[in-house]
């Protein structure tokens, strides 16, 4: 049974291997030393507590945005709107963080909750439209990304500030940072959000694999007709799936608002946390543990890349190429499977020929 469960995991691993290999080839072609390049990448991610802290800080929102995409995907929905849900979650968290003065044990949870609720509401709209009127969720969520981007900017400029560039800092009582942790990690931007992210992944796993709601969501994802036949409410499942997915995305926004930055500034464009979430969910096979591992990989690559120009003279954009190639290879898993089958059939033919030869020699 464990083997059955592990069966799907070799594709992402092979894809990562291929991606790194291709990256090395590209480095060679352009006259860089790939070994030095990768050592610089590794050091940039883990060399000292500061770098490690930054890596963890980077992977935190990725875990949540990855979970958001994966959750919707499990019920057969493509939530392209994680990006927008991150924005509204970020804004809601910062608003609660700046507008109230409360004791920390109320303030922080309230701010986090506000982010999840805001993201959930942002997910509810496409979910409702899909369930009620069969409007395709991809189109609505893409549109809602833009609505989120420009309305959060407008709210920051006109409501939370007077034509300001960014909001105030959140109150200490709503912050995920702690002096102790910051000092431990040599003043990196690390915050306690990683714990929340891991707990969210646990929740994801429990909800999807162990509860009756998860059973329904997955059934709807696999076969809507059979789910309806079995007496499940397909519409309710679709809405619930989008709301919870949006909630995860909102939490990813809270990581930025309550952790990394402590405020929200006007955004020119998307943060890519949500879009990277799609890649992470794909790489992680839509499982909780897979999403954590894929987020870790993304954190290492993105953070380590910053060290590559100074330590090895390799431009950091190379890492974007490697990430893109990894995703390409996962998406092209069909190709990898075919490749494997070809190797296996070659092996069988060889064996066949060898046994023919030996049997002829026997005669």
């Amino acid at each position: 049974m464990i083997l059955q469960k592990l069966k799907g995991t070799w594709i992402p691993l092979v894809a990562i291997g291929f991606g790194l290999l291709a990256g090395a080839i590209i480095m060679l072609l352009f006259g860089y030393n790939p070994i030095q390049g990768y050592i610089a990448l590794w050091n940039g991610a883990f060399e000292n507590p500061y770098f490690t802290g930054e890596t963890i800080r980077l992977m935190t929102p990725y875990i949540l945005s990855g979970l958001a995409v994966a959750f919707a995907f499990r019920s057969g929905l493509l939530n392209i709107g994680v990006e927008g849900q991150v924005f509204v979650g970020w804004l809601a968290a910062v608003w609660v963080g700046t507008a109230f003065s409360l004791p920390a044990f109320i303030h922080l949870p309230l701010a986090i909750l506000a982010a999840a609720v805001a993201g959930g509401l942002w997910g509810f709209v496409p979910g409702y439209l899909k369930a009620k009127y069969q409007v395709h969720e991809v189109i609505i969520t893409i549109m809602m990304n833009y609505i989120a981007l420009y309305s959060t900017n407008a709210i920051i400029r006109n409501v939370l500030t007077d034509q300001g560039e960014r909001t105030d800092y959140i109150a200490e009582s709503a912050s995920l940072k702690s002096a102790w942790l910051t000092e431990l990690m040599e003043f990196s931007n690390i915050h306690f959000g990683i714990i929340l992210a891991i707990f969210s992944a646990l929740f994801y796993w429990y909800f999807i694999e162990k509860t009756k709601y998860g059973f329904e969501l997955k059934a709807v994802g696999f076969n809507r007709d059979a789910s309806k036949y079995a007496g499940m409410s397909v519409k309710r499942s679709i809405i619930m799936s989008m709301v919870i997915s949006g909630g995860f995305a909102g939490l990813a926004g809270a990581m930025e608002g309550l952790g990394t930055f402590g405020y929200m500034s006007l955004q020119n464009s998307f943060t890519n946390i949500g879009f990277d979430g799609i890649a992470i969910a794909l790489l992680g096979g839509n499982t909780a543990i897979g999403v954590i591992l894929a987020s870790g990989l993304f954190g290492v690559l993105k953070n380590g890349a910053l060290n590559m120009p100074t330590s090895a003279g390799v431009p950091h954009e190379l890492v974007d190429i490697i990430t893109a190639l990894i995703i390409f290879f996962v998406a092209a898993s069909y190709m990898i499977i075919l490749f494997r089958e070809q190797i296996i059939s070659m092996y069988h033919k060889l064996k066949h020929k060898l046994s023919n030869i030996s049997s002829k020699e026997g005669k």
Partner: protein
Amino acid sequence: MDYVIEMLDIRKEFPGIVANNNINLQVKKGEIHALLGENGAGKSTLMNVLFGIYQPERGQIRVQGQDVNITSPNIANDLGIGMVHQHFMLVDTFTVTENIVLGSEPKKGLKVDIAEAEKEVQRISDQYGLKVDPKALVRDISVGMQQRVEILKMLYRKADILILDEPTAVLTPQEIDELISIMKSLVEEGKSIILITHKLNEIMAVADRCTVIRRGEGIGTVNVNETSTNELASMMVGREVSFKTEKQPAAPKDVVLDIKNLVAKDNRDVDMVRGLDLQVKQGEIVGIAGVDGNGQSELVEAITGLRPSEDGEILLNNQSITNMKPRKIYEHGVAHIPQDRHKYGLVLDYSIGENMVLQTYYQPPFTTYGRLNFNEIYNYAERIIEEYDVRTPNSLTMARSLSGGNQQKAIIGREVDRSPDLLIAAQPTRGLDVGAIEFIHKKLIEERDKGRAVLLVSFELDEVMNLSDRIAVIYEGKIVANVEPDETDDQELGLLMAGSQRQKVGEPQ
């Protein structure tokens, strides 16, 4: 003896099972050779070996007397072997011709020469009497016609040996007759046909010789004109099979299902059930006889809450269940064996265990405080698997990987085990072999004898005649006649199903 195909001593293993062992198949030129076996006996595996999809562990394949090594379907095509799969591989939005030439288009410069292709398709169609319109869109033509397009595709590619995989499973009786005459004209023109099937009367009607496989083992080859359906059936199943299901006379009691003046629309918003009245009592099997498309599906869906009732009333044990949600209707004591087991009956990507609680997963003991108890679920599933003889390695196996018959047995186990007051069985034996059919018929009669009301919907007249205690003939959305099976015959039912009025029993017709 010149054989076009010889498969000698074939053995094919999959991890854990031997799918084919010691199988010999020799097909003569110009014959229709049936390949008979139960679901999961290894027929498809053997054909996939011939077609180059699988490589055998042992054995020899000869085509036209030459030793060949078929390692891919392309090689099989080059050798003149063509296969018509059970599930068609056609592009809905393309025309017949476009589908046929797909992959080997005649070219005129850089353009596809569709006019030339159409002429060729028309010529082949005329030659074999296929009556296919080369310009029609595939989505507009009937299933039977689509199948002929598949056959044409093989002929266009100059196939001499045609493998037809359960070709009649999707066809109406009239279409089956047409297919049989097409097959005969194909062999007259020198083609050879391998017919994969488990329907004995088709073999008797059309095949020259028949090779039987049972549980992966080759049993033997017989001449069809020297054998009987009984002999073939016992070769296939490995024991005597009774075709007439034994049953005691029914003892109907209270009315369980009472439908009054029901109206229901189909997806195109057309009335399909038009003021239908029907009663089913405890302890009886009522069979709905009718030609496909006379409102049977809509009737079943309206009863089970999958489709809204526009008018009328559905009473279960004197309580209205009209337009209730499916779950509420199940909770009132209805079970439903759906017509399409892949679309409705199963979540194919769930384990067979999870599928066994598809309707009841939310109830204790399967769920307590919102948490699924997988121990309970799998224990329960193992019991159903055991009781209903579902052949699967265990209850963790994906539903997808079971054979059709075993999938259906699992569904029937799930539905019957809920001890419903009303059991609706829509096409319960579609596409199954005689062994499985016999088993399912027995189960339905057992349920009747336990006092359940059974509503059977089937397009197989034999099945309706065999099982029902009362036959309700449906025509254009209404029950046009209620007849007793021993007071009628195929002839009369056929006329009623076609909409003619019934004459009084006993009156000369």
